[in-house]
């Protein structure tokens, strides 16, 4: 009972061996696949699905063979390792496969009653060939007549009548040679000549004509013999005729079978070679156009078909080909095939009336596009071997497309690395070349101020001015280089969890000489968390803001640095009590080369604030400027807060103890 077999598969699934589903060309393939998949799942074992092609199955009708291949595909989609095996004896082929892949259980559809008493079902033969394998038989589908037999009978390649005529002519010629010699020869020897003729016909013309030749020869011999007296040797002749008929028939079948196998082998070899040549041609392709051209050429040569590869645009829609070669292309079907990663069009389950077949180009990373093929003769692509070959072509083309894609990606990466390297070396060369003379200038002017005996007061004043201007110049150069680095996208933020207090302290120390005698007060909210930023760059922002404040305020001005938290941001502000900002132009100050007053006696090019904004933007923060109600300018930057990392546990405990007196 089918239900019993399927509902209690567990006892059959052995530990430690995989399950082998043997899909036949008859009914029951779906049941075999379903049962095997469940067995494998219950046993937690991998499973294989095989389809055996024999000379007999190769003669079956296309729908039957396609149905079997479809079962194989189903199995593959359910996780089976699938393969199509070739051989004369299905049982032997299956046994060999099972041994090679350590399969412990084989599942097959129950064989129908044997057509001939000596032809044993596959299951029985398999049991004898591989006694260590469990064999599970599932029932064939109910109510369906055995399809193979009908197919097998009806589907002998219909040999054209010409061949039969040729076969009959050959028999006639043999009769013309052999019958006149009958008096000299024995009947058995004449029969030998006819058998020779049958063998030749079978080799040249195939099975049907060979059978026809056998019958023709038999008739000729029977008719020729009765002219002579029937005597006691009548029985002898009957035996001779009978044996001749049987041997002729068997020879015809065997010879024709051999010939078919040879032809199949040649066809297989041709397919393999075309696949190999296609793969080799694609392996050197480095551009999309080359892949297109090679695919088009090979599809034309192997299938006598026209083809085009459709690639998706950035929006995921396939773009219609620019050349009008395939004007009846159904873009909707192609898009369907692309999106579902399943073939569509002629010979498939989806839109089978379409003139084209649309194969998705499935590469390891993603679907790369669609291969649309239209054969000159509609049936060419329906043959399973041809379909399998076309699928292989599609897979190769997909891999080639993916490789070309990654070649492009690699080249882009190379170019960008090269560009970055060039930019960095240029900037560091500039930096070195500008800083070196400035270092000399600063040092030498300072040496002047320290020289002994001391300079006169007017000379000293000049020396101090020289020193201060040199320092200002070096700040300017630092700003310019930073701007260049940030603008060229070459800045990699060194983000670390930083203390705000520390950043403020470091900035104040770094630009203490620019501040002159101005008093700076810090107003940092208690308990500020660590904030993630690039300490060197934020120090530059604070320095620029402090320097700005110092530049536009009198020497006795009060500068205030504040830090507080507000809505997920750390707000850092630098405010002064100077003349304030020009009303209405607060935001324009952050533009490059924009200054509060165009004609200002105060030196500067207006780069500092632009850099501040660029740095803060790079941190994902924001920056603004405003006038305080009490007078004076205020610059504020907001940096996003994150989840500060934890302290090591013992330290945290120790801290708690200390902070609770």
């Amino acid at each position, binding site marked *: 009972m089918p239900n019993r077999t399927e509902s209690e598969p567990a006892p059959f699934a052995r530990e430690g061996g995989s399950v082998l589903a043997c899909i036949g060309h008859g009914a029951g393939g779906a049941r075999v696949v379903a049962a095997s998949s469940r067995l494998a799942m219950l046993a937690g074992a991998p499973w294989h699905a095989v389809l055996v092609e024999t000379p007999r199955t190769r003669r079956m009708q296309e729908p039957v063979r396609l149905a079997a291949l479809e079962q194989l595909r189903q199995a593959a989609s359910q996780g089976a390792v699938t393969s199509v095996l070739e051989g004369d004896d299905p049982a032997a082929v299956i046994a060999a496969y099972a041994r090679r892949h350590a399969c412990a259980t084989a599942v097959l559809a129950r064989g129908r009653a044997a057509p001939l008493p000596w032809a044993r079902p596959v299951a029985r033969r398999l049991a004898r060939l591989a006694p260590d394998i469990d064999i599970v038989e599932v029932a064939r589908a109910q109510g369906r007549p055995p399809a193979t037999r009908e197919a097998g009978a009806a589907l002998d390649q219909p040999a054209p009548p010409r061949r039969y005529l040729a076969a009959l002519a050959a028999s006639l010629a043999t009769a013309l040679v052999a019958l006149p010699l009958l008096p000299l020869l024995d009947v058995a020897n004449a029969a030998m000549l006819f058998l020779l003729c049958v063998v030749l016909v079978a080799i040249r013309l195939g099975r049907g004509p060979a059978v026809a030749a056998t019958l023709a020869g038999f008739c000729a011999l029977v008719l020729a013999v009765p002219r002579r007296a029937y005597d006691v040797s009548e029985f002898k002749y009957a035996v001779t005729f009978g044996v001749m008929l049987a041997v002729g028939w068997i020879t015809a079948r065997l010879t024709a079978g051999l010939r078919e196998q040879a032809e199949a082998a040649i066809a297989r070899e041709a397919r393999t070679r075309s696949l190999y040549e296609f793969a080799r041609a694609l392996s050197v392709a480095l551009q999309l156009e080359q892949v297109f051209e090679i695919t088009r050429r090979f599809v034309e040569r192997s299938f006598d078909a026209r083809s085009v590869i459709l690639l998706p645009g950035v929006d995921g829609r396939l773009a219609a080909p620019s050349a009008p070669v395939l004007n009846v292309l159904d873009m909707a079907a192609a898009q369907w095939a692309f999106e579902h990663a399943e073939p569509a069009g002629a010979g498939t389950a989806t839109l089978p009336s379409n003139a084209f077949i649309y194969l998705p180009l499935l590469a390891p990373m993603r679907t790369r596009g669609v291969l649309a093929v239209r054969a000159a003769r509609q049936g060419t692509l329906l043959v399973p071997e041809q379909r399998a070959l076309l699928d292989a072509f599609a897979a190769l083309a997909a891999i080639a497309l993916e490789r070309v894609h990654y070649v492009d990606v690699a080249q882009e990466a190379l170019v960008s690395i090269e560009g970055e390297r060039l930019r960095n070396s240029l900037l560091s060369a500039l930096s070195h070349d500008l*800083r070196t003379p400035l270092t000399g200038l*600063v040092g030498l002017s300072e040496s002047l101020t320290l020289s002994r005996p001391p300079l006169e007061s007017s000379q000293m004043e000049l020396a101090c001015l020289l020193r201060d201007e040199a320092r200002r110049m070096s700040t300017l150069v630092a700003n310019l280089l930073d701007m260049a680095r940030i603008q060229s996208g070459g800045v990699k933020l060194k983000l670390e969890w930083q203390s705000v207090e*520390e950043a403020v302290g470091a900035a104040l*120390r770094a630009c203490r000489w620019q501040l002159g005698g101005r008093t700076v007060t810090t107003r940092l909210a208690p308990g500020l968390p660590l904030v993630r930023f690039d300490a*060197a760059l934020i120090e530059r922002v604070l320095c620029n803001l402090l320097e700005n404040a110092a530049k536009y305020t009198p020497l006795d001005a009060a500068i205030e640095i504040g830090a507080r938290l507000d809505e997920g941001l750390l707000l850092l502000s630098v405010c002064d009590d100077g003349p304030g900002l020009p009303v209405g132009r607060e935001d324009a100050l952050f533009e490059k080369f924009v200054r509060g007053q165009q004609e200002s006696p105060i030196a500067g090019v207006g780069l500092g604030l632009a850099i501040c904004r660029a740095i803060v933007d790079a941190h994902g923060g924001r920056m603004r400027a405003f006038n305080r109600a009490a007078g004076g300018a205020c610059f504020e930057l907001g940096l996003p807060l994150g989840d500060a990392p934890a302290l*090591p546990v013992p330290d945290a405990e120790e801290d708690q103890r200390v902070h609770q007196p």
Partner: protein
Amino acid sequence: MTTESSPVALVVEDEPQIRRFVRMALEGEGWVVHQSENLKRGLIDAGTRTPDLIILDLGLPDGDGMRLIREVRGWSPVPIIVLSARIDEGDKIAALDAGADDYLTKPFGIGELLARVRAALRRQHKGIAQASSSVSFGKVEVDLQKRQVHRDGQPVHLTPTEYKLLSVLLANMGRVVTAPQLLREVWGPSNTDNGHYVRIYMGHLRQKLEEDPAQPRHLLTETAVGYRLQP
């Protein structure tokens, strides 16, 4: 200077103007100054002149100054002060880890240069003398034997971790200590990626020992490099 004869400095720098004012500044302090304009010459002079101080530019035309640091450290503890451009924080840390004593960012003032030189020499002499059991900076006094800290004569309580951090800085008084080195010495070698530990504990130390923690005078930050305890 405690020695009778004048101390000897070696300046390895390819730029003549920088060499010149460094020489003038050091000579003003009573040093005898030798100059090398490239790495090759510098390596020879470091061996033959037996200097008491080396001032080294990291970017020399014929090679990396790091090589000189490593070679000299193979046989001598002579103080080495490195000159470097601002953007190369990584180079500074690498030079300090390779054994340089301190660094100066170009452009630098003579005041800074001389302060670094004095600190480096003081530390070296301290190392030889292994002097007193108490150290002080500003209004803070640390008794190394009793492990007690006073500020303005008042006892200050430090947690064990804070004291350990302070003692590493005290041992390198006046000299920059890189953040990785502090992490290694205070928290152990497995914590070198936790840079925020140092920042938090430096904050605690400033709260307890500085007058204005936001404008420290002694526990200074060398941005992106490390910390310096300024006496």
